[in-house]
């Protein structure tokens, strides 16, 4: 049983690494349970003197957090759902299908990742405002507010993206040709190949994409900032600014709210990461 030793050492090393990675987060949680005096005191103590779980209810009482979470859930859920479908379809096409202009089109998609959002934010905003027929606009996009301050405005520009298409394409490239050939011999057309063969085998990449897209959308601050005007439409990231004033930051409440804001993402990760199970793809070959 000499095999047990390396695994034990392994586990301990991993535990230490995990703790190091987790440390700032622990710091955040611990800060949320202190008083401001404790936080600013020159003598630093990690463990709070009194565990002020009340800070959490105080923080949540400071704004309409139920509404903020609701908005974030809707926006993130819809965006991720659409992007999973659209990105995987496009990625599949770029990776497995042959059609003229394929590589040029793919490369043009990559261009989108290389531009900072600060440069495209305002033109996109103007487009959302002048979208014809919606939000009181006439056919020329004048006169109303278009998609400003609406869920559509928050979701629409993000339901597909260069990153997702790229990720899916790379993943689908990995599949052996034998898979397509076998399917074609069975007489399946492209749609069946995608929906009935590739998609079921795509759980790892869909899980990965879901995690990334959810994180990006949930943590997005700038776009909801310029897109929303009323408290009713605020997302959780905007809600966090309540604890910051021009002269002061209420650290304990801010950290409490931040912990709650991060929690759904952690839970999602816990749920999705079980799809990283080895051997899903290969079972098809045997």
């Amino acid at each position, binding site marked *: 049983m000499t095999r047990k030793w390396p695994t034990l050492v392994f586990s301990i090393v*991993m*535990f230490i*690494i*995990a*703790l190091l*990675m*987790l440390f*700032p*987060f622990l*710091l955040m949680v611990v800060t949320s349970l202190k008083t401001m005096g404790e936080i600013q005191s*020159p003598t*630093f103590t990690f463990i709070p003197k009194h565990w002020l779980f009340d800070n959490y209810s105080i923080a949540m009482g400071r704004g309409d957090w139920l509404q903020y979470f609701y908005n974030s859930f809707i926006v993130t859920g819809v965006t991720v759902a659409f992007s999973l479908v*659209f990105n995987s*379809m*496009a990625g599949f*096409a770029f990776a497995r*299908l*042959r*059609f003229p202009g*394929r*590589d040029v*089109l793919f490369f043009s998609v990559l*261009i*989108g*990742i*290389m*531009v*900072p959002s*600060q*440069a*495209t*934010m305002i033109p996109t905003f103007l*487009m959302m405002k002048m979208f014809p027929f919606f939000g009181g606009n006439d056919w020329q996009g004048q006169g109303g507010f278009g998609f400003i301050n609406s869920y559509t405005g928050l979701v629409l*520009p*993000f339901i*597909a*993206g260069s*990153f997702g*298409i790229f*990720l899916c394409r*790379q993943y689908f*490239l*990995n599949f*052996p040709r*034998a898979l397509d*050939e076998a399917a074609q011999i069975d007489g399946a057309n*492209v749609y069946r190949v995608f929906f009935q063969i590739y998609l079921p085998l795509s759980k*790892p*990449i869909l899980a*990965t994409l879901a995690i*990334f897209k959810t994180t990006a959308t949930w943590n997005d601050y700038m776009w909801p900032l310029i897109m929303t005007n009323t408290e009713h439409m605020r997302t959780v*990231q905007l809600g966090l600014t309540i604890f910051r004033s021009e002269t002061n930051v209420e650290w304990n409440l*801010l950290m409490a709210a*931040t912990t709650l804001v991060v929690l759904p993402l*952690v839970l999602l990760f816990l749920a999705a*990461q079980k799809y*990283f199970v*080895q051997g899903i793809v*290969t079972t098809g*070959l045997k």
Partner: protein
Amino acid sequence: MNSVNSAAAASKVTTSKSRRRAPIDKAGYLFIAPGYLVYFAFIFIPLLVGLYYSFTNYNFYSTPAFVGFDNYVRLFHDKLFGTAVYNTFIYSLFSIFPQMALGLLLAVLLNGKLRGRLFARVSVYIPNVTSMVAVSMIWLWIYDPSLGILNRVLKTFGLAPVQWLYDPSTAMAAIIIMGIWKSIGYTMIVYLSGLQSIPASLYEAAHMDGATKVRQFFAITIPMLKPTTFFILVMSCINSFMVFEQVNILTNGGPLNTTTTIVHQIYLRGFQDFQMGYASAMAMVLFVITLLITLLNFRLGNKGNDTDVD
């Protein structure tokens, strides 16, 4: 094993035959349509608009007036922008490789059945999931010269405290360390999903041939991960070139401009000084730099079309 080999061999024969009359999958256009349309409308067109702005003196309000290449000429002589470009390169150089290597290592280690694997995976990923604002503020404390953890640790070892974010020689290093910490989870996850597509049969065969785990890692894992590595490399290059949020919160470009980056300059010129035309020119330059680097990656990575396809 053999059936796979013969199937692969057979498919190679059929592929070369059918290539002469390569069928066009018209469905391809349909598949890419929704994604491409959204991309085109909300990213490509604003990009073109940005390109247009870069040749004007747009200030967000008045009608932009055409100024030709003035913005670009000015960029060329802008010392601050030059510093920003240099800083961005330094940041990218020192954060990409550690983050990829560590991410790969952790993915491999956490792929097998290990006790506490879930705990470790979650811990490594949480930094990536926490918003940059929260993370930056926590690291502001960690780096605090008098109260921060780092300096306290140094003190217990009898070393002099470091000014971290206020010392021009350490500020960029401090930002890089935080950047790596935040991004390891990201590379780990992508590698984890890439690892799933490597057939277990390959490892079994190697094991039967007597290869050690380390040998397997270098002979099987790394080559089979090429598309994934390629992807991560391209994304890491692009992402690190766009570093902005942590600079904005932790150091605001200082001290002595040692941490200002290209996107930080775009933000300042555009949204603080109202010089959107100039900022757009900067964005175009950033775009060209990233494009060149991506092209370089594609050339070296053989278009990322490594395995069994076409």
